[in-house]
């Protein structure tokens, strides 16, 4: 009962933050609210027992992404330009996608159901065998770093490439702009 109320309150704050983000024109405020959105979703993940995802959310959502967004903001304007297109078509697309996703959840087993397919397949074997196989107490760690080690290695390579790409993009732009600034004083 208490947990349900906690989840509902967190969801309420999450939705309010999302609405406030869409209404705000001030990009710096949007970055701040995105940080709060990430904090709220991490709280939700902790309260739903997905601790490893909450860890990722802490490192990526609250840490890296606000840094990246702020360093992007140093390169662009700080006020969003008003959009001239009508919001009708995006609204339709979003509503249809949301309805499809909600329709998809109708078939899902309820939260924490021990008879759901996810619990009956490989998960039971992991739970039974991992202490003897790997001698690591945390099953999630065993699955991510050992049973699916190559998968995780691939993911790490993808994330690393993306990070290097973003860093190169940001630093190159800044240098070019600084050179432009010395040539023709203060164009902005």
């Amino acid at each position: 009962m208490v947990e349900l109320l906690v989840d509902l309150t967190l969801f309420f704050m999450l939705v309010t933050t999302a609405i406030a983000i869409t209404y705000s024109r001030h990009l710096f405020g949007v970055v701040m609210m995105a940080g709060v959105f990430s904090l709220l979703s991490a709280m939700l993940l902790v309260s739903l027992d997905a601790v490893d995802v909450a860890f990722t959310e802490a490192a990526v959502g609250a840490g890296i992404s606000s840094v990246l967004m702020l360093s992007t903001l140093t390169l662009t304007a700080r006020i969003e330009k008003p959009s001239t297109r009508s919001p009708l078509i995006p609204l339709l697309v979003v509503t249809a996608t949301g309805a499809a996703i909600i329709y998809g959840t109708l078939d899902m087993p309820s939260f924490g159901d021990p008879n759901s397919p996810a619990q009956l397949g490989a998960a039971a074997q992991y739970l039974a065998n991992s202490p003897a196989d790997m001698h690591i107490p945390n099953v999630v760690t065993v699955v991510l770093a050992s049973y699916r080690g190559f998968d995780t290695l691939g993911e790490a390579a993808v994330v690393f490439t993306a990070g290097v790409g973003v860093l190169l993009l940001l630093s190159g732009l800044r240098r070019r702009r600084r050179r432009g600034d010395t040539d023709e004083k203060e164009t902005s």
Partner: protein
Amino acid sequence: MFVVAVIALFIAMVLVLIRLYWGPTLYDRVLAVNSFGTQTVLFIGVIGFLAGRPDFLDIALLYALINFVGTIVILKYFRYRAIGDVHQTPTEEETGK
């Protein structure tokens, strides 16, 4: 007891969120995010006790650290208008109005 703390933290979060949406200055928003981060750390700690498994405090620890990094990045943004290497100190026209 933990329920009391959770309720107090929730009310505090809602109040701080209103300040975050309202503004009016940018620094009010930074302040609200900062305060919200501290409340998040406390909330994750308390919710662990409330659920009877306070073993997940590592996340709260991680958040306590990352929050600080976030605030310092914002400070650098305001002070130098750049996040990466900063070579020059801010001149009059950059900081003044």
